[in-house]
């Protein structure tokens, strides 16, 4: 049995409210595992405990009870972070640094230096498509560019796990698509991704497995395909079918016990349409 990328066991986090006797239970007895190589979507409405869970996994917040592990190492240990890259929601990196300086700064924090650091910085700036803007200060970067530089810094030490909090928040559809493609690229490279997002369409496209948190409790968890498929329905999408063939199928349906629920032309997504119109890559 392989070691899971993330193992959360009976995790509870309670925040006391200052000067009051009340307490807020942000996460309640949460247990889940993220297998290595998966893209895992952690979903939930605002205040459901997603960010707190992520922060505990990253060692930024300590659990009230229970434990979290990253590739078998307790999250509270600094060493466990060797394996993690993190992109927070709406990050503002040091505005006075250029893109290349930012990536180098994080590389040095991870112990890289010299030619190794230079090579890795160049490689990542190319990967996220910021080669040409690498000498510009971040103060002049767009939202999408900031997210991409955030991904580059998250990847600097070649981590086995990426934790991404709303990576496409505030980014235009083209930028959003690029980030989504990058996540799929990470997956193909064997990197595990823990993704928090409110954009359920994106989650549906890229996640293998999801967990839904509500008021700090994990209410659903499993393979995405299993969770959202409607077991007693079947979808047929035909191309270049003649009206006669459709009529024939409908007659067969009428003769059977089955019921035709809906007959319609498949539609493209608004995002795909937007990207086609604006010249983006669909």
């Amino acid at each position, binding site marked *: 049995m392989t070691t899971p990328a993330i193992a959360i066991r009976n995790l509870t986090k309670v*925040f006391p409210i200052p000067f009051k006797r009340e307490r807020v239970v942000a996460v309640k007895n949460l247990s889940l595992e993220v297998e290595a190589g998966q893209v895992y979507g952690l979903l939930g409405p605002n205040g459901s405990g997603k960010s707190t869970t992520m*922060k505990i996994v*990253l*060692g*930024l*917040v*300590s659990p009230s009870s229970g434990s979290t592990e990253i590739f078998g190492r307790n999250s509270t240990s*600094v*060493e466990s*972070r*060797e394996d*993690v*890259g*993190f*992109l*927070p*929601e*709406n*990050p*503002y*990196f*040091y505005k*006075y*640094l250029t893109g290349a300086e930012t990536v180098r*700064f*994080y590389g*040095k*924090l*991870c*112990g*890289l*230096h010299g030619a*190794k650091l230079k090579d*890795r910085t160049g490689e990542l700036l190319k990967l996220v498509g910021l080669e040409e803007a690498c000498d510009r200060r971040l103060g002049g970067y767009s939202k999408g560019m900031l997210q991409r530089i*955030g991904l580059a*810094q*998250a990847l*600097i*030490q*070649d981590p*086995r796990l990426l*934790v991404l909090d709303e990576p496409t928040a505030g980014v235009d559809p083209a930028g959003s698509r690029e980030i989504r493609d990058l996540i799929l690229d990470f997956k193909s*490279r*064997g*990197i595990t991704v823990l993704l928090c997002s409110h954009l359920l369409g994106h989650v549906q496209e890229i996640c293998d497995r999801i967990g839904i948190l509500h008021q700090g409790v994990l209410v659903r968890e499993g393979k995405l395909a299993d969770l959202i498929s409607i077991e007693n329905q079947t979808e047929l999408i035909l191309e270049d079918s003649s009206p006669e063939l459709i009529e024939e199928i409908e007659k067969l349906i009428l003769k059977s016990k089955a019921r035709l629920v809906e007959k319609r032309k498949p539609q493209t997504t608004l995002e795909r349409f937007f990207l086609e119109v604006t010249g983006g890559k669909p």
Partner: protein
Amino acid sequence: MTHSFRTVHKNFSLARINTIAGNTLLELIRLKVFYFLLLFALLIIGSSAFMVNFTFQEQFQVLKDVSLGAMSIFTWLLAVLSTAMLLPKDIEDRTLYTILAKPVPRFEYLLGKLLGVLLLLLVATLLMSAMFAGALYLRQQMVIAATLHGVSPDQVQEAIRAIRAETFTASLVPGVVAIYLKAALCAAVTLFISTFATSWIFTILISVMVYFIGHIQSTAREYWLASGDGSQLAKIFMFFVTLIFPDLQLFNLVDDIVAGNAIHLLMFWKTVGLGVSYLGVYLLAAYFVFANKEL
């Protein structure tokens, strides 16, 4: 997948501290904090306007008093204002999350931040010292030039020796070191406050209060002890005030320098030792609060 860019984690790394310190220094320099040096230069030039009818001893005294006093205030302001925003800004911008999500221990982050400010203060102190020395040298040359007209040739060497002896006195170096140490100590105090403060305004206010308490505590203590009516409770209170707040008056050597008094080396090194010890204590206190801080 190969992991050729992975490194072996060290529990304590000077390279990581150096990276954070260098970045902090760069941040403060790019915030253009050195513009205040123009103000310092103007102050030195402005002080010359009052020296027309002074003796050369008085001229040097005024220049030293104004320059060292301004250095003390400017380094303190720089220490408090630049340190107060470091931590809250990193938290607000979520930059701190990205740094601590890397294998960086919290102590190294704090130490790096403090060292960055100390480097900034060192650069600022050196630049102000250079400007002060330049102004003192110019004043010396002006005084020598003026003196040469009024004394007989056989007294020239004696007069020049007397002027030079009044210009660059040995006590100037410990005086500048003490100014730097006081600012460094105030930076450590501010860093400690910022680990639990809810805003940078609160941090600055408390730091200013510590500064004033630090300056008046020795006078208050002496007054209290001299009056002899202090209760046991008051004595305990005084003891804790003395323990928590460093006696910043010890770092004030300007009056002695201006008066031409010699600085006792042993006393000076004791002050240096006290300053460094307090700095270490405040850094550790900051770490204990920051280590358990929920981010």
